[in-house]
């Protein structure tokens, strides 16, 4: 090569490289920028001319109404279970691909990631003569590596041309579920590479002249387990976007293109300005939180997420360095763009729910991560269960932000401990009683308990951690369409509580079996069976650990036929402790289970979880303790041992005096057993992670990342700046090795006995 080339030559080289790029993969220039772009010249021109604020307000209202209408269409006509309970969005974007507004009831996370594929289309397809972007075109996409929450979500994106000019983009997205992955339902924890994740649509044109291209639709139907659903929802999304288009064109006709384009841009800029103002109100400093994920959904292993939030003036920096490394063959990684979408959700759900649902909320926030960590994984890493770190991102704010925010004289929203942050629902798949193939998940995912608040207990089973807009769907439809039978009512999970001055909102028990299918199975994808997930705040405790319980080798329907009273009440703790169904194999397992067949009448049981508690348990009003007892949320043992209340078990009348004395004694006992911090640390702090726990992430220094090869128990560390992925052994191979060793040992023992004899 020459040392020097002319500018002309450079242009030629750049063009040659662009024309001959072998693969338009996820583009870091797009995927690593979560902020709104600088004004386009058109936007700048419009805003410099100035807009009538009243008109902006009016236009914004009309856009919202249009987005709402399109949202309702999808909500009512969508075939996917996710569409029915509101796991969807409709959105409008500026001409250069910034997401300005989403439907008020749409999933927030989408607001912070749906723009990436549109930017990809703008960058690559507009000028590509083999693709192009014309009026009447529609584009589809699902691969989160190009932007998106995860690959279960499919989008329909459409440019809006007005008088020949591209003035904005419109879209509709649904959590479709099924996507042809190696396990049904679209979120395969068993995925060991990205090629196990099913169909991966980079943004491509699937609509021309406002009509679906049947050849491509057929290809997509051929790639998933639910071809009917694939077609129906593509139609629904297209029609919703077309309705939205009509409404926006009406706005353009009435107010003109400047009013629309100006309003969209102004909405983004106003939101960003308000964010900076709120950041300035907080004290300068750094607060920190650690989150621990205890499962890869294939094996238990402890993965640290480290977060430091620093505020300085109007800058807010989130530093995730020191977090666990990516897994090369486990599904629980996420790309950084999806992770940021979850952060945006968490901010709008937990800290400032009054801010507009737009990407501009995240725009002024700086986010730092280690490349190749579990939250910033490379494209080749599987990420089908990216929900795991993303749910953590939704609640990561609660502790550090409340520590920064508590002093601010203006309270925009209540102070809340962490919501329960696991997808505690049955994911299912197989043949329905009608002979159709299906795969998806139950709406119980929407029943996460709310975190306790600074002024009140959390609400039970309030909403999913990723959106306050989801309802628990249509239970009835679920049972008509699938062989899943619910046993017993959805009782609140007694004693499974994030304790505190105010307790977390609780979750409910889900007891499921299958009937009438030749082949049916379940999977579950939750962490927190060993290390609790939802954290308390200001002395409040976390939720407990949760398990997956099974009763296998029985058929509950036959048992009930033989003896209708065999089970007194379908209550997990009673069933497991009393074991009333004879001959059953009762087991208590990790909450992460890859797809497993459920024979007719076998029982699977999980719980939705409790939010974290708030404040010191000894400050809980004894009346509230009695109320929890009266509502059978808690046992007497916990009322006495945790809350230290003295009362009459029959009448629930509190002895105030004795309670005050007991609590004073308890405080004294704390002072006696506690050690001064520095002395405690000398005994407590170890230089390395414990040898009996497979630990991933930093320990005492965020720039050093610890990892383990569980196959040989070999622990090592690496610099965070040069992290490589971890390859995990097959847990079944480990089990086989263990059994072989046991077998050999027993054989040797036998041989020894025989030789003696």
């Amino acid at each position, binding site marked *: 090569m020459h040392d020097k080339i002319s500018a002309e030559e450079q242009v030629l080289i750049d063009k040659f490289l662009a024309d001959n790029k072998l693969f338009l993969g996820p583009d870091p220039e797009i995927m690593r920028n979560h902020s709104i772009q600088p004004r386009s010249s058109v936007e700048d021109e419009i805003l410099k001319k100035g807009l009538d604020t009243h008109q902006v307000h009016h236009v914004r209202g009309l856009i919202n109404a249009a987005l709402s209408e399109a949202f*309702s269409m999808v909500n009512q006509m969508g075939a996917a279970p996710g569409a029915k309970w*509101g796991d969807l969005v409709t959105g409008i974007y500026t001409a250069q691909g910034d997401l300005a507004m989403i439907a008020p*009831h749409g999933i927030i996370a989408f607001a912070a990631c749906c723009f990436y594929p549109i930017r990809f289309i703008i960058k690559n397809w507009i000028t590509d003569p083999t693709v192009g972007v014309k009026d009447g075109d529609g584009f589809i996409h699902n691969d989160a590596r190009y932007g998106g929450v995860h690959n279960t979500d499919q989008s329909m994106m459409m440019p809006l041309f007005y008088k020949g000019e591209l003035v904005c983009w419109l879209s509709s997205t649904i959590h479709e579920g099924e996507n042809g992955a190696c396990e049904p339902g679209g979120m395969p924890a068993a995925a060991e590479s990205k090629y196990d994740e099913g169909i991966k649509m980079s943004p491509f044109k699937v609509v021309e002249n406002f009509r679906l291209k049947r050849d491509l639709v057929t290809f997509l139907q051929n790639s998933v387990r639910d071809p009917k659903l694939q077609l129906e929802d593509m139609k629904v999304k297209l029609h919703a976007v077309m309705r939205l288009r009509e409404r926006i064109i009406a706005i353009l006709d009435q107010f003109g293109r400047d009013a629309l384009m100006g309003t969209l841009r102004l909405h983004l800029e106003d939101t960003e300005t308000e964010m900076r103002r709120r950041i300035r109100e907080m*004290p*300068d*400093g750094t*607060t920190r939180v*650690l989150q621990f994920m205890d499962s890869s959904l294939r094996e238990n292993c402890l993965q640290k997420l480290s977060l430091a939030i620093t505020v300085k003036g109007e800058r807010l920096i989130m530093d995730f360095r020191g977090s666990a490394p990516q897994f090369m063959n486990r599904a629980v990684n996420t790309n950084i763009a999806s992770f940021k979408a979850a952060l945006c959700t968490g901010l709008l*759900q*937990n800290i400032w*729910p*009054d801010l507009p649902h737009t990407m501009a909320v995240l725009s002024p926030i700086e986010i730092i991560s280690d490349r190749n960590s579990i939250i910033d994984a490379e494209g080749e890493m599987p990420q089908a269960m990216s929900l795991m770190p993303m749910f953590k991102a939704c609640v990561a704010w609660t*502790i*550090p932000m409340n520590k920064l925010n508590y*002093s601010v*004289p*203006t*309270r*925009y*929203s*209540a102070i809340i401990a962490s919501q329960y942050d696991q997808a505690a629902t049955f994911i299912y798949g197989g043949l329905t009683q009608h002979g159709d193939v299906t795969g998806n998940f139950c709406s119980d995912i929407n029943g996460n308990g*709310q975190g306790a*608040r600074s002024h009140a207990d959390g*609400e039970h089973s*309030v*909403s999913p951690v990723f959106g*306050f807009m989801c*309802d628990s769907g*249509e239970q009835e439809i679920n049972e008509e369409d699938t062989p899943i039978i619910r046993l017993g009512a959805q009782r609140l999970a007694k*004693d*499974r509580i994030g304790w505190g001055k105010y307790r977390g909102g609780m979750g409910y028990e889900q007891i499921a079996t299958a009937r009438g299918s030749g082949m049916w199975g379940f999977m579950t994808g939750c962490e927190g069976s*060993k*290390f*609790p997930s939802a954290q308390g*705040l*200001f*002395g409040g*405790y976390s939720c*407990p*650990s*949760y398990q997956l319980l099974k009763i296998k080798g029985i058929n509950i329907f036959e048992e009930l036929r033989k003896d209708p009273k065999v089970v007194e009440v379908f209550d997990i*703790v009673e069933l*497991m402790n009393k074991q009333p169904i004879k001959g059953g194999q009762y087991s*208590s*397992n990790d909450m992460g289970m890859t797809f497993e067949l459920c024979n007719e009448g076998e029982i699977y049981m999980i719980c939705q979880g409790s939010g974290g508690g*708030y404040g*010191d348990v000894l400050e809980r009003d004894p009346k509230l303790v009695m109320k929890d007892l009266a509502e059978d949320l808690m046992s007497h043992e916990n009322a006495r041992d*945790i809350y230290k209340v003295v009362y009459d078990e029959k009448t629930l009348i509190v002895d105030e005096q004795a309670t005050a004395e007991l609590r004073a004694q308890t*405080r004294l*006992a704390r*002072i006696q057993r*506690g050690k*001064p*911090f520095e002395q405690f640390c000398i005994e*407590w*702090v*170890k230089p390395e992670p414990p040898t*009996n*726990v497979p630990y991933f992430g930093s*320990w005492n220094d965020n720039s050093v990342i610890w990892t383990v090869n569980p196959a040989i128990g070999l622990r090592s560390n690496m610099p965070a700046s040069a992290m490589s992925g971890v390859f995990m052994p097959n847990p079944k191979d480990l089990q086989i090795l263990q059994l072989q060793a046991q077998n050999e040992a027993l054989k040797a023992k036998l041989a020894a006995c025989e030789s003696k004899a």
Partner: protein
Amino acid sequence: MKVLITEYLRINLDTEQWECRRCGHEHGSARDNYKKGLLVYDRDPREVHKPLLDPAKYERTYSPDPNWCRILEYYCAQCGTLVEAEYLPPGHPPLHDIELDIDALKLQWKDRQEVTEPPVGPDLALEKVLNHRALHARTHGHQH
């Protein structure tokens, strides 16, 4: 001037001390880690999250695994209030969770009125949930 930092902690800007909001006890310099002024206890998580399933029958009982998780309880040395409950793997260094710029804090509060009781914000997230539930019930023609 005192600035409320958490349910149980405040900073006295005049003395530059961390203080207990329940008893006024001084925990130490506001420029340092407040935990240094507290007492700590390594609590077995099974005492707080008691086993609900029979430990004789099952290894997993709804209690956290004490080999994986401990609860560090931080108490006010004077009144015994539980200021923080920190869940950590055994031996993990406690987190320096609040580190504020005291000079900036003083400047910020120069023109602010002292707040002695924290304001309670509206629970906007919950309001949204309830609104959406009502909407959903209307859309689908029934109540849950």
